[in-house]
């Protein structure tokens, strides 16, 4: 039987990664009111950018990490500016467009790199012992970096003018416009940040599993469960939702059945939508 320390460590490490993915997803919904189904594509692009930079170009893994932050960020930005901004008044059209984009990105990697999973270097090697449990330093670093990024995002949103403008736009587009906030700029910024967070999450995920064209799919599905559970549009709710879903995942695999991995979060998604559609926290402030 696996001990509880193991389960707790796995839970903490995995959930930080889930939170990183879910935050960008909820940010775009909270601010722009649209669902970005191409969010998983940023994960895939991040994973492959790091892979290609480190293996094909021989760059260090830290250059790979920078690439995994920048390239998906720019991709997300281009997606917003080039396509989504033209139809953002029509959420269904945005969903269809972003879904198609996600499928196209997958297909590009299927054709260009192939379906065979590729190994992405760890950021750090070796392991440390925490409470008698051996933990890979790479995963620990992923945990720490995830929280640094989440913390930085919180600080940015709550402390800076631009961040407050994002928050204001998410509360009320009309109100934000009245006080002179350029919502177009805010949406652009949101898509850029969401792309960067998902991209680096892609590298983190690929560094302990492997990169393959469909790597973005399950995190996107998990993001749905997480943001619905936490309350769509709530960043705080997404972080807590990520930890609840992460707990369910780890406990299911460790204590119930290895065949049910990934299933329970979807059950949660359905239950929450029926029983408490506003999620645990709802929107922080709504129009």
């Amino acid at each position, binding site marked *: 039987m696996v001990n509880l320390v193991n389960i707790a460590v796995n839970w903490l490490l995995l959930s930080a990664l889930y939170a990183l993915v879910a935050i960008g997803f909820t940010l775009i919904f909270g601010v722009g009111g649209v669902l970005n189904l191409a969010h998983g594509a940023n994960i895939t692009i991040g994973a492959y950018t790091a892979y290609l930079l480190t293996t094909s170009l021989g760059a260090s893994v830290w250059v790979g990490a920078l690439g995994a932050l920048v390239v998906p960020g720019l991709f997300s930005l281009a997606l917003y500016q080039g396509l989504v901004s033209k139809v953002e008044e029509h959420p269904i059209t945005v969903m269809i467009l972003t879904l198609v984009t996600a499928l196209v990105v997958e297909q590009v990697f299927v054709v260009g790199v192939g379906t065979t999973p590729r190994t992405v270097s760890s950021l750090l090697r070796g392991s440390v012992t925490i409470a008698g449990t051996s933990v890979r330093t790479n995963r620990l670093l992923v945990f720490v970096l995830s929280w640094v990024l989440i913390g930085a995002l919180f600080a940015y949103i709550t402390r800076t003018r631009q961040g407050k403008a994002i928050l204001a736009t998410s509360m009320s587009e009309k109100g934000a416009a009245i006080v002179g906030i350029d919502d177009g700029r805010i949406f652009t910024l949101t898509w850029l940040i969401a792309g960067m967070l998902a991209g680096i999450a892609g590298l983190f995920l690929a560094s302990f599993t492997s990169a393959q064209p469909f790597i973005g799919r399950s995190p996107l599905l998990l993001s749905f469960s997480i943001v619905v559970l936490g309350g769509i549009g709530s960043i705080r709710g997404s972080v807590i939702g990520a930890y609840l879903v992460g707990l369910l995942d780890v406990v299911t695999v*460790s204590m119930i059945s290895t065949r049910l991995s990934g299933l329970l979060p979807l059950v949660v998604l359905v239950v929450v939508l029926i029983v408490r559609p506003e999620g645990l926290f709802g929107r922080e402030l709504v129009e």
Partner: protein
Amino acid sequence: MKATGGGAVLAAMTGYAGRVTRQTQGGSVEGPIKIGVLGPADSPVGQSIFNSVTLAADEINGEGGIGGAQVQVVTKDTKQDPSTGRAAYQELTTGENVDLTAGIFTSEVLLTILPLMAQQQTIHLTSGAATPEAPQQVAASYDQFKYFFRVGPVNSHYLGVNMVDFAKAEFGDMGFSSVAVMAEDFKWTEPISAALQGDLEDTGVDVPYNERIAGDTQDFTPIYDEIQSQDVDAVYTVLAHIGTSSLVQWAKQQRPFQYGGIHVPAQYPNFWELTTGATAYVFAQNTATPQVGPTDQSVPYANAYNDQFGGYPIYTGYSAYDSVYIYKNAVEQAGSKNADDLVEPLEGTSYTGVSGTVEFYGRDSDYPHDVKYGSDLAFPLWYQWQPAGDGGTPAVFYPDSLADGQYEPAPWTQ
């Protein structure tokens, strides 16, 4: 060295004359003979099928064709999706009017197409898909499904039997007295799990952990924690779709147990490069390696393939290649390419090719028209990925007759 011409040139350049001596000009058959090949085009397993059939067809055409008829190859992508595969099969058999279909790889696609084979009355020689359900359908309704034959690999029941045979022969030497069995929860692994159940323990090895793992598992950490808590010597895998992710996490986490078994990605000849060495010390079952094969024709075939396509074939290629020659022999024996005339000669096949000696189980067996499993027939070999120079190489250590290396435990487990 790059092969540019037909079979004769290729044979001359590679010293690859095994095929030519088997040539029998069995009268004249109305040509051309069209072979429709199915497989996942984006995957190396599919590419190996397409390329190997093309290679065999080129060689045969260079030697005068099948019974004097030239061979044409048409390939179609299944995308590993049953409905796409079904449409592709229909295009091949009705639009292209092919005489033979080969390949497929995906069991679910094969089972979807099987009823169509009865309708189209076209011989199918399958490669890659290992489900025992296909020959079981031949057993249940012979007249309807008699056009189906499997050239390789052995069906998944026998893949499991082979895992037990391997355990019996090697686990003692490998230092395994206790293993965890980890099978991905897909249909293809069910007969293997069933074959392992009980029989593995009967070999004297303790199996404290025997689990099926969800097919979309990404994080193996909790699973490995559980396996580690059972203090096993090794994890014995039955993995394809989630194999790489599982292997990379085992290697990166330096888990204190050995790792290997049926592991489809570890069968890729370039798997060392694909995983940048994470596959070091993993042991795996396969048809052949580029350097070692079950017959003296296996390595020359792999080299000819490499010369033509710039890379070595995966296991699906070996049986796809043999299937063209098996078909050729049957057509030349029957003096006809009519499917009904070919069933009997195919049933009598005993063909030593590149994948082993191919014979098919008889009509009254459990698996009619399925390739026979046996140490002198189709019999997988086992190797371990070992560091060599700047890269790595598969070192074969079972069966003894083919061994070119010895098993070494992963250094961090010592």
